[in-house]
């Protein structure tokens, strides 16, 4: 899914919700996943003027889950450990986006190359 403007965020959140409902994810986990997704997509629009998001249903053993991969070609993050710290921001926000999103999902992975872009991938298991 291609994200370029703010209104796309609402559409994207609805799409994620559809998938979460489809695999029977509970309301609390749904809310956590969508909130985390919302934080990450905002980062993408704000710092990289948009990007591409992949929504996948995955399974491990008997557990189903949803994986979201956010890929942008923005400026990249020079210091990831610092960016993952609560309260750190280069913008004017609260600095909760990345660390907050990580707390809300089951698995969180971030890769970034300065000048080339950032890829964040999150997994939320149905019962995780």
């Amino acid at each position: 899914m291609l994200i370029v403007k703010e209104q796309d965020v609402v559409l994207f959140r609805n799409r994620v919700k559809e998938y979460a409902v489809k695999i029977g994810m509970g309301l609390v986990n749904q809310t956590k996943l969508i909130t985390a997704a919302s934080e990450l997509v905002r980062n993408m629009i704000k710092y990289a003027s948009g990007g591409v998001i992949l929504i996948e249903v995955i399974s491990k053993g008997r557990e189903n889950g949803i994986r979201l991969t956010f890929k942008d070609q923005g400026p990249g993050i020079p210091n990831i450990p610092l960016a993952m710290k609560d309260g750190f921001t280069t913008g004017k926000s609260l600095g909760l986006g990345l660390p907050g999103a990580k707390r809300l999902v089951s698995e969180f992975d971030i890769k970034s190359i300065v000048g080339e872009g950032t890829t964040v991938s999150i997994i939320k298991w149905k019962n995780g």
Partner: protein
Amino acid sequence: MDKIPILRMGRFLLVTIQVDLYDRLALNLESDLVQMVSKTGANGVLIDISALSIVDSFMGRILGNIGSMSKILDAETVVVGMQPAVAITLIELGLELKGVHTALNVEKGMELLQTKMGLIQENEEGTGDSRVE
């Protein structure tokens, strides 16, 4: 351009957010609301978020901002109707919604605002040396 309506009810302003917000819409609400508080001299702002399926850090910050800005303009803010899943998510995200009061539903929120107004009035009518928080 979408807009969130702000209703005036006596000394209070009432906002019911019925759509999922994107950032610009939330920012517009913030500035509209603060201007309305200043224009009408309202003493209370009630924001109903029962239709919001998520509140992320941005929306949380906007709610906090509205609370602080209204406070400076002498109006209390109450956020009502938060869904349980949203409350769980907010705390895990690390957001505590400081600066705004919360109530379970619109009715309780109204009561809270009225009590606050009542306390302030009593205080003004009294000797003036006791402060009620």
